[in-house]
């Protein structure tokens, strides 16, 4: 039979290809058809920011802190472990929050007054730049500086890089110091760094951040900086605001009305 050798080789080659491809195709057809979607109510922004109106803030009130800590399973350490405390949103006096003293002669009413400070979700976050595992990253679509706790190796470069002290390291298993836990958000494990996440988990289900909702005086306002009609832009149009350490070029997105 003329050409049979050639035909045989062609056939053999095709068969080998088929045999090789079969398991690949089989696994591809077995693999799940993966499509992902958002909650219909999810709040979508392009540049989330917060305004803290200190004049509306009551000195003895801890509602925003309590709501955040409860919602995110942030432990309360005993006083002797204060230096290892976990901070998401906390109180700081003016001269510590703004050490460059933008106001030379502080009015009496601001002396000793607690300022709410939290992660500034910087435009140019130094913590993101130093993270060796990309555990902390800036979310492209809305500018939130987020943490992937799974990836954090606990090197604490980010804590050294952050000029606002917004990051805390878990020296202990936080569950030891949690009076109660909320299953809607995970706890952390010993050995990871954590910080405020601008309530990305709340935005995903259509809620404003927990601290904003907890404030009875509406001292905390959250919104999209790129939307000229947003609540934050409305305040920024009317009131002069300051930011923490703007001279460092980090581009903080938390604004303070004094």
């Amino acid at each position, binding site marked *: 039979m003329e050409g049979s050798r050639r035909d045989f080789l062609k056939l053999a080659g095709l068969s080998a290809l088929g045999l090789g491809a079969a398991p690949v195709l089989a696994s591809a057809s*077995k*693999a*799940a*058809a*993966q*499509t*992902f*979607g*958002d*909650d219909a109510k*999810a709040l979508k922004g392009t540049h989330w920011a917060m305004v803290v109106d200190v004049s509306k803030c009551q000195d003895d009130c801890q509602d925003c802190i309590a709501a955040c800590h*409860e919602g995110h399973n942030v432990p309360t350490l005993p006083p002797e472990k204060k230096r290892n405390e976990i901070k998401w949103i906390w109180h700081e006096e003016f001269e510590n929050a703004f050490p460059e003293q933008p106001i030379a002669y502080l009015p009496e009413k601001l002396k000793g007054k607690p300022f709410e400070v939290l992660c500034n979700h910087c435009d140019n976050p130094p913590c993101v730049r130093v993270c060796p595992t990309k555990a902390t*990253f800036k*979310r492209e*679509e809305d500018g939130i500086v*987020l943490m*992937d*706790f*799974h990836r954090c190796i606990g090197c604490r470069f980010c804590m050294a890089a952050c000029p606002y002290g917004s990051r805390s390291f878990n020296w202990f298993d936080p569950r030891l110091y949690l009076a*109660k*836990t*909320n*299953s*809607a958000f*995970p*706890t*952390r*494990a010993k050995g990871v760094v954590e910080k405020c996440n601008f309530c*990305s988990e709340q935005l*995903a*289900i259509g809620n404003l951040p927990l601290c904003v909702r907890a404030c009875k005086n509406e001292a905390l306002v959250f919104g999209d900086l790129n939307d000229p009609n947003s609540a934050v832009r409305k305040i920024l149009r009317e009131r002069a605001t300051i930011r923490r350490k703007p001279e460092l070029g980090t581009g903080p997105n938390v604004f303070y009305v004094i």
Partner: protein
Amino acid sequence: MRMVPYDKEKIGAGLLIFFVIFTLPFWYNRGRAVAPANPVLPTDYKTCVESTDYMKTSHMQLLNTWRTEVVRYGPRYYTNSQGQRYKMSLTDTCLDCHPKKADFCDRCHNYAAVFPYCWDCHLTEKGTR
């Protein structure tokens, strides 16, 4: 040619001891079988997020994808090959049908001697407590 003297008995005994010690695990476990994993399956649900075969072999890849999507990109819902929609959450979705970690996850993981650290952070009990 001079013969090299050697202690046949000592070497033989040494080899025997070595052989016994080397094969000790086999002697130790002789006649014993490890109990099968037998995870407790839900009775009121027939199907998982994907087919049982897929979940058996690839649940870790699926959960890895869920983690990456939720934590890094934002979507919270997963639509499976049957078009059903699930919230991507260990505590809210997986525990719905498999409420007891010890009766489900741990059975196979202990059998296979793998110890993932999902539950170091994620909570095994729903709600506030």
